[in-house]
């Protein structure tokens, strides 16, 4: 049989645990009280007994057993309630007193009295007293009724039981209330999650304005859901794009192969096959680029960082592309400050810069001036700017172009995977660098802001 849900909650278990601790504390408290109280009372009794013994001896004036006998008899006769006297001779026979003979044990002793003149209603109860040696080998005992002790014990036990019971009831009661309350909040979160899993990604967990842990949890979960929703939307977009972008070359590929089949001459077939290989290569390029972007975004390369001489790398890059630009009738200029150092990936950074410079070369007409510049800005890291005086990118597209497969209308027909800027963005993110597109008046300005080598993390 399964316990009702709320009894299985952590909060209830915690409550039971706390109840246990409280009971233990109560136990200890009462224990201490009893111990102290009982100790006090027994001390009192012992003192009284001792005082009485002393009094008896004094009253015996002298100390012979006979004198003592007389005194004890007198005291016994006039014994106030709860006082007990006993005198034994050396042989253990009772000489005087109001209780039955006892074994002659010296010191403080406790025993259960039986009725014998002066007892209470026949009920046995505790007597506590002092036994001392009497002259001539005798034994004198004076004792008091320890009924106070008993009463105290009883009272403490009773109140202890009441206390324990109250604690348990309170603990379980409040625990249940708490659990039910907490459970309700947890249940809200669970229910919302179930709704989301069922497909409604726009649902969010309600936040009560109490600013407690549950609210924080709800807020965090909601933020996570926002992110997931964005990613899912992005994913759907990408899937559509991939499907679209790969269908085209694959369709061409298929068409060419069919043509190859129908080819008249071997040369025709060879040519068709060559073109098919090109198609396949372009598809493979897309996949390789996608794979690289995914790997970079998964931060699998963050540990391969080394100190990079950025000035040298950029100058090198500019030198490489100067001739390529010249062939296109463009000019490549540099303005790179010396001694710039950053922490980075030796393989990925060249790809980043190469991509950006090549974009400028490919998308700008003859006569464009492309500039590669870099400088250190105190307190703001190292800034790299790649600018061109070409057509630029419209302001409303400047964040979109970083999306996978996004192409500006006018570039739709040019060769390329459409992944270049996504790759740049991924590499920049890996380096904790900011990448921005802006207007170069005219043209495009790509700004990259890196942390300097000694500014890391």
């Amino acid at each position, binding site marked *: 049989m399964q316990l009702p849900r709320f009894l299985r909650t952590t909060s209830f278990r915690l409550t039971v645990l706390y109840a246990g601790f409280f009971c233990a504390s109560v136990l200890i408290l009462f224990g201490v009280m009893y111990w102290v109280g009982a100790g006090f009372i027994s001390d009192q009794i012992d003192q009284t007994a001792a005082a009485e013994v002393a009094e008896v001896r004094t009253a015996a004036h002298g100390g012979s057993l006979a004198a003592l006998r007389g005194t004890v008899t007198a005291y016994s006769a006039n014994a106030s309630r709860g006082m007990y006297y006993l005198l034994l001779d050396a042989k253990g026979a009772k000489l005087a007193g109001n209780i039955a003979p006892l074994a002659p044990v010296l010191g403080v002793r406790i025993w259960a009295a039986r009725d014998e003149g002066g007892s209470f209603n026949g009920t046995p109860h505790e007597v506590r007293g002092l036994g001392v040696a009497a002259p001539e080998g005798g034994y004198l005992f004076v004792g008091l009724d320890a009924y106070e002790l008993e009463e105290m014990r009883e009272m403490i036990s009773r109140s202890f039981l009441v206390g324990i019971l109250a604690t348990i009831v309170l603990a379980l009661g409040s625990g249940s209330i708490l659990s039910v309350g907490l459970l309700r909040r947890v249940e809200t979160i669970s229910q919302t999650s179930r709704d989301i899993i069922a497909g409604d990604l726009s649902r969010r967990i309600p936040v009560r304005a109490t600013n407690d842990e549950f609210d924080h949890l709800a807020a965090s979960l909601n933020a996570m859901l926002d992110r997931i929703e964005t990613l899912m939307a992005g994913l759907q977009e990408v899937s559509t794009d991939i499907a679209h972008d790969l269908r085209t070359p694959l369709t061409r590929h298929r068409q060419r192969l069919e043509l190859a089949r129908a080819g008249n001459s071997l040369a025709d077939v060879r040519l068709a096959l060559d073109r098919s290989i090109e198609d396949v290569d372009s598809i493979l390029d897309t996949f390789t680029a996608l794979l690289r972007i995914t790997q970079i975004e998964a931060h*699998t390369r963050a540990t391969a960082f080394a100190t990079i001489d950025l000035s040298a790398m950029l100058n090198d890059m500019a030198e490489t592309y100067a001739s390529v630009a010249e062939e296109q009738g463009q000019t490549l200029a540099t303005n790179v400050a010396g001694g710039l150092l950053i922490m980075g990936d030796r393989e*990925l950074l060249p790809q980043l810069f190469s991509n950006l410079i*090549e974009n400028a070369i490919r998308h700008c007409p003859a006569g464009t001036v492309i500039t590669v510049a870099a400088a250190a800005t105190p307190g703001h890291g190292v800034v790299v700017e790649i600018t061109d005086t070409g057509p630029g990118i419209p302001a409303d597209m400047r964040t979109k172009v970083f999306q996978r497969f996004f192409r500006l209308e006018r570039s739709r027909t040019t060769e390329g995977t459409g992944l270049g800027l996504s790759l740049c963005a991924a590499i920049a993110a890996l380096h904790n660098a900011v990448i921005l597109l802006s207007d170069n008046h005219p043209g495009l300005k790509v700004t990259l802001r890196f942390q300097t080598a000694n500014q890391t993390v």
Partner: protein
Amino acid sequence: MKILLIEDDRETAEYIARGLSEAGHTLSVAADGRDGLFRATGEQWDLLIIDRMLPGVDGLSIVRTLRAGGNVAPILFLTTLGGVGDRVSGLDAGADDYLTKPFAFAELIARVNALGRRPREIKAETTLRVGDLELDLLKRTVRRGDKPILLQPREFKLLEYLMRHAGEVVTRTMLLESVWDFHFDPRTNVVETHISRLRSKIHREGFDDLIQTVRGAGYLLDAAA
């Protein structure tokens, strides 16, 4: 050359076998890691081509084991991964070169030839000569016949590479990796541009171009013009 190929994918193995036999090499194939390691250590080979993903012992472990055991045969590593860190780990393990599948026949053959050039000990030569073209490594100067040629640093590096591989086809990818340290495919014709510039700079009136373009493969520097 006597080549051992350790590759578990039959089609790839056939593809490679065909390409290499046509180029005149003798090829043996091992289909799993353990068998491959056994055969690699059991015989003398001019070149080992090892696939990274293998059943039994994986390619990376084979390379490490061979190197640890003192085997100095050149190793070409193959992989479908093409991951950003795989190249470095392969080279770190002791491989001499690295190819991502799929690759063109021409690429494979060019690299196999380059690796097969033995002995690998670089003679303490300070000048490279091909025909009447002379490159001085110390002075960083180039001359054709008795005419000095002024080259940019990158052009010098490019010519040096071509001359070290004189008589062999070098692919675009090989040049990008060795001369530019680019481990990606640029979207512009970086290599072509530099080759054509270099070509015109070392051109000598009345003589054929030393640098030839081999269609579908790459470039070739040859004195037999």
